[in-house]
């Protein structure tokens, strides 16, 4: 069984960005075993990248073949390859930010999506925004590499509102964490 080193990945992220976030103590408390995503840099995405598209198996899921990079309020936006729920970008929030009055969960489930512009795989952190009733707009359920509850951080049905004041689910965001390959 091959796989991500999520633990090492998380540690690196924490070392790199601990100075930029006021949520350090929260992250430390949670540990780095689940992707904690209060502040993430968007690693370079060269939309004009002339490199040949990646031809890995992952690039060829049905979602990846049809994904687009222009409109983050549509279910086929490339980052949403494993999102489940209402898109915060349709609810008064953004692709990686929460609508007014909602609270971002400090932890999230993750996915690996192919950017059609460069054909490369990127790690996504899907962070729920919590504390309001269901947004109800732009309901998506994409399932690339989505697995079952015994691997919770790769499951998109869990309500990822741990550590928020209210665990009620409002909508979901897709934060770009970095290149996956």
């Amino acid at each position, binding site marked *: 069984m091959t796989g991500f080193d999520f633990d090492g990945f998380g540690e690196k992220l924490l070392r790199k960005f601990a100075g930029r976030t006021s949520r350090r103590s929260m992250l430390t408390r949670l540990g780095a075993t689940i992707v904690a995503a209060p502040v993430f840099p968007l690693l370079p*995405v060269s939309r004009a990248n002339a490199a040949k598209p990646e031809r890995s198996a992952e690039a060829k899921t049905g979602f990846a073949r049809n994904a687009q990079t222009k409109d983050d309020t549509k279910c086929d936006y490339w980052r949403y390859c494993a999102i489940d729920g209402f898109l915060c970008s349709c609810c008064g929030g953004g692709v990686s930010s929460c609508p*007014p009055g909602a609270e971002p969960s400090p932890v999230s489930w993750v996915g*690996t999506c192919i950017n059609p512009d460069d054909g490369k795989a990127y790690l996504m952190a899907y962070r729920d925004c919590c504390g309001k009733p269901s947004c109800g707009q732009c309901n998506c359920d994409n399932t690339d590499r989505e697995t079952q509850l015994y691997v919770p951080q790769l499951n998109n049905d869990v309500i990822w509102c741990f550590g928020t004041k209210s665990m009620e689910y409002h909508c979901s965001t897709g934060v770009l964490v970095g290149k996956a390959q």
Partner: protein
Amino acid sequence: MTGFDARGTDATMTIPHSRRRSAAPRALLALLGSAALTSPVAAQPAATPAPVLESEEAFVHKLPAASPHWSYIRGGFDSGGTRIFNGDTGKMLGMINTSKWSDLGLDPTGKFHYVSETIWTKVLRGTRQDLVAVYDPVTLDLVAEIPMPGRLLIGSRINNFVISDDGKTGYIYNLSPASSVNVVDFAKRKFVQTVELPGCASLLPNPGVGFSALCGDGTLATVALSGKTPTVTHTAPFFSATNDPIFDNFAYNRGTSEATFVSYTGLIYQAKIAATPVVAAPWSIQAAAGLRVGETKPLDINWLPGGRQPMALHRATGRLYVLMHKGEYWSHKDPGTEIWVVDLAARKVVRRVPLKKPAENIEVTQDDKPLLFINGDEDATRVLDATSYEQKFDIEHAGGGLIAVAGAR
């Protein structure tokens, strides 16, 4: 200030750090999971040419400066939440936490949103709590809760929770099954008193006096709150509450303190709200359209007003928009198939706008390029230009409930 109580969620967060760290390697691996990719993640920027560097920070949006074209649309009967939409774009801007049994109050001064609500400690059971929740209109955060005695549970009423023009006092209708009104001081954020109001409901703010209300005996009651004890006075009866009732979801113009009522048969009543309200003689909306007046007798098919929130008033122009349908008397909940645009001053129907789908609720924005919002059972809200009557677009999944706009009531 009563804010959130995070005890419950805190409890889930206090697992000792060592518990996760001391887990068996196999278990840890499982918790960490694995993906179908073959290479580990590197958290360094790749050396691609001319990268577009962006930074993604977790943040929570604030609402921009409010536009008069915003609308606040309730979900259906069983759904919580009132969605805020920009009528120019159809985009959702945010959501106010209106719980299932609640009424939304938009502060006339724009400083807060108020939610008059009834909740139980255990969803359907437990201890009942009646309160006004106070939300910041920019962050949509809960900033306070004001406990109060009971309030009536009922759907789709716009006049059970009204706010004084200065934004300082809220009036909340209760039926227990005796009839009364809770007076809440919003400046001090505390409940003041309950005023008994037997036989009346459907409130109107009455500036400098207190509030007024419609009564089952066909009068308008006025409650003066300036004295030591509230005093209740009534106009003479001017309508029949059972033979030709007026819709309790009526329109009110804060600028002129005038109320506009429409009856089941289509009579339009206008009332000046003051210490001693004055109600003008009614006139027929059908006659104002050059048609014969509405009747109460069966088998008489005519255009009649109907729906749940069946009328909207544009204050500056005095134009009243009424949802009308063809039917018999006692079809007052039938959705409208046309909007009739009434010039109140001229007492003329100046336009009849056929609708593609029937509508139950209508509201109009209060600016000089007004928009109409209409909706019904189908969960979409339609946006029309209130001057050209062009049907601009539908907002899907907006919710099929009551519609509010700033300054309309």
